[in-house]
């Protein structure tokens, strides 16, 4: 019996098998060996749609002013400011689901800030597990990470910062979509599919938004989110 290695987890894979017995990735066989097959993920029925130009984010006030974080609703959306080296997540806690498509459109106002959407954010006590799909407009790069932890958060890049011309620069809006179905995670930036990856680490949780600052002076940085739309993944 011929065996090759799984392209996702490197475990041995029996020739001709439809999926890996270890990581459950679906594979297709051709002359060069197995390649990963991702299911076609399309946004289906909308579960919730929040227009941040007209309404506040669930659980947040219309205007928040703290030393390290401010947020206010403007005609363009929810404008968020964070001091340097901070991260803030805005989960839609009422929506807990396995397969989900999360879409947002946001604009970075300062260099160095990055943000996007989160999926499958799930609390365990005071800790969380999360997938985050982000763009950093200053460098026109995107990444997909998973995080675990509470007071200390461990962030692991599934797809590290990757340049893409699909990412609009600072001052221009970026539309991000992260769709998850089973172990398949697929990301789009401004309508362009930029990543499709297999990761089975987290299976369920809430969608949401994320905004982070890094490499910034003490003045921090800001961005404006126009809204968030959460859909089921079409079966």
């Amino acid at each position: 019996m011929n065996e090759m290695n799984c392209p996702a987890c490197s475990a041995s894979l029996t020739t001709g098998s439809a999926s890996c017995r270890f990581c459950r990735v679906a594979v297709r066989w051709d002359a060069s060996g197995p390649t990963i097959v991702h299911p076609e993920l399309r946004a289906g029925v909308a579960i919730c749609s929040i227009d941040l130009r007209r309404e506040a984010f669930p659980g947040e006030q219309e205007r928040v002013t703290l030393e390290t974080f401010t947020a206010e609703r403007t005609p363009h959306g929810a404008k968020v400011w964070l001091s340097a080296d901070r991260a803030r997540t805005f989960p839609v806690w009422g929506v807990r689901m396995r397969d989900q498509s999360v879409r947002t459109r946001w604009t970075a106002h300062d260099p160095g800030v990055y943000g996007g959407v989160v999926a499958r954010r799930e609390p365990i006590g005071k800790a969380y597990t999360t997938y985050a799909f982000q763009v950093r407009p200053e460098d026109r790069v995107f990444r997909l990470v998973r995080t675990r932890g509470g007071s200390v958060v461990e962030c692991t890049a599934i797809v590290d910062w990757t340049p893409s011309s699909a990412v609009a620069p600072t001052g221009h809006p970026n539309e991000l979509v992260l769709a998850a179905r089973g172990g398949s995670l697929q990301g789009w930036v401004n309508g362009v599919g930029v990543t499709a990856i297999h990761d089975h680490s987290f299976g369920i949780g809430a969608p949401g938004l994320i905004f982070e600052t890094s490499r910034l002076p003490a003045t921090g940085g800001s961005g404006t989110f126009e809204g968030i739309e959460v859909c089921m993944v079409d079966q």
Partner: protein
Amino acid sequence: MRGPHTLQCEVCGGPTQFRAPRCGYCHAPLTWGATVEIVPGDEIARADMARDTLPGWSPEATAAARRGDACAVEFKHAMVKLGTFATPACDACISVSGVCLDDQGNLGALARYVREGAAQSYYGAWIHPGRRRFTLERVLGTPQSAEIEVLTEWEVSGHVAPVGALNRVELRCADSVLDLLVNGERVATVVDARFGFGHFGWRASSVTPPSTLLVHSVELRHIR
């Protein structure tokens, strides 16, 4: 060799999720019962303490702790000791056989264990022969804190053998379905989709040290 069938589309063979209405690859409709029957399949790895190394321990440490056909795990302080096989997986059956020599020891199996940096997460089962009870929990821990959510509260069961007798605790995982078996009898079934992938292994702890457990074997199998 037969492929996995517990969570496999009957039409195209693609992996499916428990309770998904359709296959994500060929869109064939899927039908599900209240749960899935998880049956152990081929062996992935086995550690027999009469001859092998305890997963997560060095050969020297195992040799130093070997007592006949078992490996002694001793506790002088309150802590959890654990070890996993090297091969990670989504769906598998892990079984741990051992004896608690006093009423303070807990013996357990863990599934989908991942350690990234300082954080670790896993599903874990315990049996406590001193009170003949079991539990199933999920854990997300950092050095600062261990967040534990109980999936099945401690429950007394006659299937848990008493102190001094051999117990076999088995955790079977298929997608979001987790089966806990004690000495071959299913004592709990839980549907939880939180953690999907990781390493499988054993764990042990002591309610009040000192305490000693003997681990006889740890076995990891595919599901059929």
